[in-house]
């Protein structure tokens, strides 16, 4: 699935991923391919993107997430 993670300062991550974990407003949300379409808000925490064996982590202060047909778009505010 395609993941793009962007803040107002620029793109933090863009590309294919196997597994994504985001800090949803009420707790961590793990996303695997073929997730249903979703719009939700994110709270302060860590976005984890797993590609194969590697995992990347991004700290965010808030944001929101949209999932549609294996395209995940995350717009976040990053802590200064």
């Amino acid at each position, binding site marked *: 699935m395609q993941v793009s993670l*962007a803040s107002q300062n620029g793109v933090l991550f*863009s590309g294919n991923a196997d597994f994504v974990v985001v800090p949803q407003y009420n707790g961590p949300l793990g996303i695997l391919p073929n997730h249903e379409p979703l719009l939700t*808000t994110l709270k302060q925490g860590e976005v984890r993107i797993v590609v194969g064996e590697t995992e990347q982590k991004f700290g965010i202060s808030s944001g929101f997430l949209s999932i549609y047909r294996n395209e995940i778009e995350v717009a976040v505010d990053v802590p200064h």
Partner: protein
Amino acid sequence: MATVQQYKERIASTSSLKKIFKAQELIAASRISKARGFAENARPFAETVTKALTSLAAHIDIEHPLITPREKPTRAAVLVVAADRGMAGAYTVQVIRAAGELIARLQQENKSVEIFAAGRRVVSYYKFRGIEVSGEWEGDSDAPHPELATEIADKLVARYLDENADNAVDEVYIVYTNFINMVSQKVKIVRMLPIEIVKDDENGSATHPLYTFEPDVGTVLDALLPRYFRSRVHQCLLDAAASETASRQRAMHTATENAEDLIKTLTVKSNQARQAKITSELSEIVGSADALAKKA
């Protein structure tokens, strides 16, 4: 007629001015690519937010304080965006003139107007004339960072959603310069609040997914709309920054050319003065030689 010495002095001072203009022109040119880089970086975020919002608007009727127009707008806020520094030709003047026209129009519609100013030149323009400014931001007008946009956007939203309904503004306008390309920039007036969402009817709602909203539509909109507004404001600031540097580069280019012209004219005059001096010296020598020859 001035002496050769005086011309020489003027040529020297004009050439050093020319060097300064040239340097300013080069600085402005390098800043444009910086401003463009900022704009490029901010785009993915803006696109994500806009896309989510338009697909949301396509299949539900959104109701939100930031979108629903007020019934009888009586107060308006105007954000005027221009430069911190001069040396950019008519850049700031044009923005302020357009803002003046907008304010006059709003007042004719019986709306009271609050002015917000971004850019030192704008702030001092209004302050000098004793016009009250409700918010001011200075510095970084040629390289606006996201934090500045966030600060401005949050302040405007706060004024719009003021708890005391009689005190809140009902409309928010922004006056800035739209960057079309290097040679063309146009002052633009946009109503930013209430937000107008363009529904892309072309695709129809069929292609738009039926999203699940978590926890609910209202909360998602609360997160989405301020971000959308923020990125719109940021976009305006970035456009204004690119326009400012482009205007400055053009103004400095013209100034350099004018200095060159002046140097040319002064050099010709200086040569004429030198020639005139030589001619008069010669005629004096010839005259006195003649007189001596006649005596002898």
